[in-house]
């Protein structure tokens, strides 16, 4: 074989391997989508979105309370994690230098890697044990612990990408450090930070483990934050391990709604990022 054709062959093999790896990565996603839609779609109906769970033994009913519950939990988690994560990220990027900053960075990375069930146990000890009651607040708190490190690190990394000449420009006009950070640097990094926040949201909206013994579950509708509250993930889990066929069907439907939910979040993240970026470019 001549030299050039050998090189071409090698190149083709490597390109082929790359393609194969991409397929391997995409196939599970496609299968999950396919299977969840196949199993869940037939059980989806209007009642599923509007009705409460029926008592054991009765067929039908829906997961309206769990959907509202999931939204409430995400809302609580965001209300805690977005300000905390954002401010911590600004601190790391704009103020901190040296040992303390690297300690915070390391802690955030470790927290990001802590198994979600452990975070659930921690939130249980922090917010459930002292008051002897499962609550939406405890669930939201557990989820916020998962969001904070993601938001902190993305905010920091994206702020580091903003040219420091912008900070100098603001300071030279008589801005304080804080004003330069929040008035110029954060807006300049906003598209990326928004993506980080939406990625964190997508990540936590699918979590079950941190909720198992914090927000627990609730077969009834509630909007009270100091009460146990239903969530799609825990509801799906409960129904999936039950012995009833009708509940199994509903679990599939719940899983489908959840996947759709996260899918919409991700698409939204894309759209928002594009919009903001376009505003910044021209």
């Amino acid at each position: 074989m001549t030299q050039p054709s050998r090189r071409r062959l090698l190149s083709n093999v490597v390109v082929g391997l790359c393609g194969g790896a991409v397929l391997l990565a995409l196939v599970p996603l496609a299968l999950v989508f396919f299977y969840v839609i196949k199993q869940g779609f037939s059980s989806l109906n209007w009642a599923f979105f509007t009705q409460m769970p029926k008592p054991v033994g009765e067929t039908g009913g829906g997961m309206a309370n769990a959907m509202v519950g999931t939204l409430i939990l995400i809302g609580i988690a965001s209300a805690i994690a977005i300000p905390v994560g954002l401010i911590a990220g600004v601190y790391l990027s704009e103020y901190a230098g040296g040992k303390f900053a690297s300690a915070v960075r390391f802690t955030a990375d470790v927290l990001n890697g802590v198994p979600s069930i452990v975070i659930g146990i921690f939130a249980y000890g922090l917010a459930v044990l002292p008051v002897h009651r499962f609550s939406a607040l405890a669930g939201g708190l557990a989820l916020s612990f998962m969001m904070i490190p993601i938001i902190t690190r993305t905010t920091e990394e994206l702020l580091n990408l903003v040219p420091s000449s912008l900070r100098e420009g603001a300071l030279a006009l008589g801005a304080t450090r804080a004003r330069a950070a929040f008035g110029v640097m954060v807006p300049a990094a906003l598209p990326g930070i928004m993506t980080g926040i939406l990625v964190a949201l997508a990540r936590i909206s699918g979590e079950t483990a941190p909720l198992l013994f914090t927000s627990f579950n609730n077969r009834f509708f509630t909007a009270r934050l100091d009460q146990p509250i239903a969530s799609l993930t825990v509801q799906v889990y409960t129904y999936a391990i039950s012995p009833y066929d009708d509940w199994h069907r509903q679990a599939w439907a719940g899983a489908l709604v959840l996947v759709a939910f996260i899918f919409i979040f991700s698409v939204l993240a894309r759209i928002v990022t594009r919009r903001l970026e376009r505003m910044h470019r021209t």
Partner: protein
Amino acid sequence: MTVTEPGSPSIPMTTVPEVSSPPPPRPAGPFPAGLKTRMETRRLSFFYGKNQALHGISLAIPEKSVTALIGPSGCGKSTYLRCLNRMNDIIPNTRVEGEVLLDGHDIYGPGTDVVDLRRRVGMVFQRSNPFPKSIFENVAYGLKINGLCRHSELPERVEKALRASALWDEVKERMHTSALGLSGGQQQRLCIARALAVEPEVLLMDEPASALDPIATQKIEELIYDLKRDYTIAIVTHNMQQAARVSEYTAFFMLGRLVEHDRTEKIFTNPGQKITEDYITGRFG
């Protein structure tokens, strides 16, 4: 007349090229009588960690004129400029010795409000750095954060600053589009407008035209020429012709020391130091 600086006594002079050193006079500078000094440094030294970047610079910047700072790369002219509005404060592990006087008050002295100082001593950077906001918001930024005018006066003040930087006619139709859509030269003039909007007393320019094409450079130079009627300007430049064109006074820096400071005309036609002549005629640097 020549002003030379021997540096502080503890620093060995070995690194300085042939410079004859008469005892340094007070930096009255080569100015005609009656010209007021706006800014002045006395024995200003600056350290990056253990590295001394400026060696006892004494220099006066007279008002309503342009003082050009020239010298080879790394000679400390930008560092010097950034001492004048304390922009070096944000670099960790740096130290300043000596005095920087703005209207007679030491800006490194206690009780200086750095934020207010930077409002009074504006700065334009080498690379234009408009904020990723609209043209209007860029110019209004300094006015807003300093609370310099009522909200209703903003458009008027923004227009005034843009007219002063000769940008108004080019951008008046697109005030609320992103500043990043402007050309490089326009962006730099926008940065000048942004600095002018807060009505500083002194304007520092760090190679404001070095990243621009000749036509944009010419516009900036014309602008500087107009601005000196109202402002005191110090400009760092690598471009000899530019220094000769826009400035009244020129200070030649070399290895962190002030070698010569005189009327621009004198520096460029009959410099007092051999080394200045060598630099200006392009024999090194």
